[in-house]
């Protein structure tokens, strides 16, 4: 009798294992992962790898206990990061997830069609129109307290200008130009704030707050990281961002999206991870961010750029 009961319990446990199996994935990246971003990343990851299991994404704040915590888990490491901290046995799998930095436009405001290709001027027109409709509110919100956001703008303006990186000090503003015509990202942002188009509170906002403001419908535009795969099907964003349009940030003639790549590492014994594209394929829709250069910029220039944004006086 007891034997039968024990056997039944063992069988039930064996049967229950696949139901409760979860794939834990540690994230190592420069980004701040908001809940919405993590959810979008999880769904994209599941689609990419074809995993039906529950996927638990866990941003890694420090790598000290990784060897102990990550045993049996997968690890996503931003391309360009030093992977020496990985526990022994972890090797790169030819699988990656791309995240792109986009301007998310809210399509819930009636009467304001958002074209798929929005240039700087159109963007400004939209902002003014929105400001006109709600003078007390700001149509655009950014996470300017985030050094990653500042770096993205810097890269984007540099790319538009054909430079490697932006200058150390912002160039002086020409009052004859509208803000969208500014050549420097800081001046651009500063003047947008001065024009009451960009919410001044953006200076104190991080990625999470910016996402919350956007979700609360307190801003029509906000820059966000989304899986690159979602660019082709914006409906994938609806679960997290609502009815939106993903746009390359309309700086001058920009048509590209800054992109980072998260490469998957797995323990050698794990055989369930299918192989993805082996190498990064060049795509002119994206600007691949250089982790090392970005890190250096963040370390050496981000503080000055942020101060310039606060102080102004261009």
């Amino acid at each position, binding site marked *: 009798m007891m034997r039968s009961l024990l056997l039944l319990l063992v069988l039930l446990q064996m049967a229950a294992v696949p139901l409760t199996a979860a794939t834990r994935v540690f994230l190592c990246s420069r980004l701040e992962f908001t809940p919405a971003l993590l959810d979008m990343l999880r769904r994209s990851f599941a689609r990419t790898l074809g995993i039906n299991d529950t996927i638990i994404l866990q941003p890694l704040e420090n790598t000290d206990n990784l060897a102990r915590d990550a045993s049996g888990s997968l690890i996503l490491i931003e391309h360009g990061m030093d992977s020496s901290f990985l526990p022994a046995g972890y090797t790169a799998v030819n699988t990656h997830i791309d995240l792109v930095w986009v301007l998310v436009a809210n399509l819930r405001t009636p009467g304001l069609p958002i074209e798929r290709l929005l240039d700087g001027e159109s963007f400004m027109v939209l902002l003014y129109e929105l400001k006109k409709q709600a003078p*007390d*509110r700001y149509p655009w919100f950014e996470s300017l307290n985030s050094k990653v956001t500042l770096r993205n703008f810097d890269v984007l303006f540099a790319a538009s200008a054909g430079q490697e990186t932006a200058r150390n000090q912002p160039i002086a503003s020409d009052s004859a130009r509208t803000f969208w015509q500014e050549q420097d990202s800081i001046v651009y942002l500063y003047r947008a704030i001065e024009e009451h188009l960009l*919410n001044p*509170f953006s200076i*104190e906002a991080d990625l999470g707050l910016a996402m919350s403001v956007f979700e609360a419908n307190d801003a029509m535009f906000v820059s966000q990281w989304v899986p690159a795969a979602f660019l082709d099907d914006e409906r994938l964003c609806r679960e997290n961002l609502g009815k939106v349009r993903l746009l390359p940030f309309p700086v001058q003639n920009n048509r590209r999206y800054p992109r980072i790549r998260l490469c998957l590492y797995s323990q050698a014994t794990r055989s369930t991870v299918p192989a993805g594209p082996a190498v990064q394929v060049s795509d002119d829709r994206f600007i691949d961010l250089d982790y090392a250069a970005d890190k250096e910029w963040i370390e050496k220039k981000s503080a000055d750029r942020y101060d310039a944004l606060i102080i102004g006086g261009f």
Partner: protein
Amino acid sequence: MYISLRTKVISLLFVLISSLAFIFNESSTGLIQEKTREIFQQRIELLLASIRSYWDSEKNMLLNNAILYAESEKIINYSTYGLNNMLQREMERLIAKTGFYDLEMTLVNGQIVSSNQYASRRAQPLDLRDTRLHLSWITLQFIDDSLYMRAEVPVHKLGEFIGRLALRRKLDDTRLKRMARNLQAEVSLAVKEKLVASSLVEGGRQALANEHFLNNDRKEDIFNLKIENTVFSIGRVILEKTVESDPVLIYLAVSQDKMLSLLEEARSQNFNLTIWVLVATLILSIIFSEKVLISRIRQIRDGANIIAEGDLSFQISSVSGDELGNLARSFNRMASNLKQNQDRLQHYIERIETLANYIQNILGSLRTSVITWSMSGYIETANNAAMLEFNEFFSELEGLSLHQFVKKFKSQSRRELFKALRHLGDTGDWQFDIEFEHGEHASTKVLQGNFSRLLDNDKKPYGFILTLNNITQRKIIEQQLYHADKLSSLGQLAASVAHEIKNPLASIKTLGQLLQEETEKDDSRRDYIDVIVSEVNRLNGVVEQLLRYARPEGSSFCEVAFEEVIKPVIALVHHESDRHQVALVPQYNDDLKVYVDPEKIKQVFLNLIFNGIQSMDRGGKIFIRAFKDQDSPWTVFEIEDTGCGMSEEVRRRIFEPFYTTRQRGTGLGLAIVKKIVDLHGGKIEVSSEAGRGTKFKFYLPGRQER
């Protein structure tokens, strides 16, 4: 009904202590009730006094929260930078689960963002010149039958006024229940005629609403209200006014159940305490009564029992100094006195017994019967002589009434006795004779009586004494003397007459015999002559018997066998008995000897047997018995026939001379028998029953007694 002393003592103690306990219980319970009600009243008053401070604390808490929210960085930033939705979300988050009704931000531009409204609305821009915008205040709002407490505070960002934040709390049932928990009293709020919120349940809420509606005079007071079988003490105060200047009343209701239950508990505890005290007292009473009282009383009781059993020397050993000790000492003194008195009494009793025995011996030795009566007419004492005299009729004389006593006496005797009794108080000696029949043959006993008065120690009449002397024998002797005297005279007369008759009879007989000789036998006169001669002979026999009876005769006594006496008699009468078909049945022992004059006794038997034969015309039996009476010196002789018997009259006169029932009898046969028996010093009795026979029984004394 017997109730022991212990039960009485314990019952008394129990009643006393239970009464005291009851009084204590009632008074203490009453005091507790009074104090409890007083405290309860004070509590209501205290609650009413403290409700204002509690109300103030409520307002302060609301205001503090409003200030806290107004200082929230997010609130300020979201308000400043037009993030209205974020502001609304933040406000929702802030007051979520706080119990506040809503949080509302009014911006300088008139934009109003409220936590419980989906979209913000716009009002008139704030007039920044109004200095009141920088003040904080709390107001009460009565909206749609609901009361709200609203705290409004200014919001600044870096010292610049950006709007006003209003925090509202709806004073609903939930809030009042919380207040009720804190105040430990039911709380209700009323505005105008409505009870807007209450911590009471529906029934109580309705009752209070009715009360408020009926007595909506807005006065502060304390009253009682019965709500669903529960009495509440209710205090009412006016807290303040709404923004529309309507007074806000608060009702504080405190159930008296707890107080009543406390009182009941106190009463119960008092009662239990009383019961325990009573039980303890009862136990202590039992122990106390046993140790201190009962055991010592039992000692005295045992001593009394010992004394009652006769041991008057008993003394209680342990004597204490209290009342029971005094009792024990008194008991010991009593025992000592009893002992002395007993000794003295014993001495008197012995003397009295000696005297009584002496008197009893005197009375017992008397041949005179002495009987005493009480005044009630019942015999109290009777001496031995009296008992012997009347033992045939009464087994016990004592207790007999006078009438029972005299019932056996002859009527003449009773009359004489009562006559003497009536003259008991007279002077003179009233003697009387009592006659009654006794014995198997109903012989008459004669007693000479005399009554005398019996006095007690105070010389007062106590009863009377009857003394009786048996004079039967004396009477018999007197009668015999009279009879003898009569016979003696008769005998002398008969002898002289017989002597005078005898000579002519001799001449007549001689002449008659001569005539017989001279007359032929066939002469018709010869029969007459024979009759003359025969009758002369018979007359001559009668004269001879008469002379024999009257003649004084000497006696010749000797001891002879009875058989020598009776056999010649039987032989002599044999012929006559056979002729009358009478069987003679002698019954005696052959060795029986008698001391008699044989010839005279033969004459006795001869006369008696002839008498019996002549009484039986159709034959019969004659029993001849002789035997010695073992209990007396007498020799008893019986001649019993089965003849016709005799009447009482005949029986009484049968021994008289010349008394006869036969036509040709002389009437001297049985008179001669009695004379011979008397000559022997004996006595003769006759008993007869008509139709069944007659028995003669005579007693002759033995040789020594004669």
